[in-house]
């Protein structure tokens, strides 16, 4: 497992390649988030960020057969078309790899302490958290079972 919070860019291909060195790996699902249209500054909480991502990845490992995983999240100044985040998950089969990768992204969006400040033409403004991201993370929650009636 590799978790890195860094200023510099990353090479998704090299990271994916590194995850497929184990001959038991048959599938690597990955996601790259990219800056759209507006430049931004990404602030984070050093220390907690890595810990939180580690917990998210660990949680994914309890739900799916994850053989290895790499998460890289950039911080600092980013401009349109810059890569922001990479989540890559290696598994024997593609179903596990896809599900774990999407799960990690959804949770990263709602739990990892990063904040985006957009540099718009009208000035800088902090991006507001989106309800759709909460909803995306929410769908992975186990439904709480109805309490059993004691007769």
């Amino acid at each position: 497992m590799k978790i890195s919070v860094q200023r510099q860019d990353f090479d998704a291909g090299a990271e994916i390649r590194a995850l497929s060195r184990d001959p038991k790996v048959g599938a690597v699902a990955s996601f790259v988030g990219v800056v759209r249209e507006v430049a931004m500054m990404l602030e984070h909480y050093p220390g907690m960020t890595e810990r939180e991502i580690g917990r998210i990845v660990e949680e994914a490992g309890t739900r799916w057969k994850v053989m290895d995983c790499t998460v890289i999240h950039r911080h600092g100044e980013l401009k349109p078309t810059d890569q922001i985040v990479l989540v890559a998950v290696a598994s024997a089969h593609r179903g596990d790899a896809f599900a774990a990768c999407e799960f990690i992204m959804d949770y990263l969006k709602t739990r990892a302490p990063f904040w985006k400040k957009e540099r718009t033409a009208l000035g800088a403004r902090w991006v507001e958290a989106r309800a759709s991201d909460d909803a995306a993370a929410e769908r992975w929650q186990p439904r709480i079972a109805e309490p059993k009636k004691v007769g």
Partner: protein
Amino acid sequence: MKVKLLFFAGLREQLGVAGEDIELPEGVGTVAALRSHLAKRGGAWREALAEGRLVRMSVNQDMANPSAALRAGDEVAFFPPVTGG
């Protein structure tokens, strides 16, 4: 007891401070109590930490509920809902 405070993003800018070490008065033993205590400083503090505002809190780098207990030396952070990824 002493705790270390950290503020991030819009909250840090609104308060004009990234962090401070403070001595907690008697009776301020939870994250919620600490928040109220800080809000009583008035001005930007009252506004930023008012009950209606969405503020997330962590203790020693773990997300914390308002009822989480504080201990001497804790690192307590206040920040807006996250927007990474």
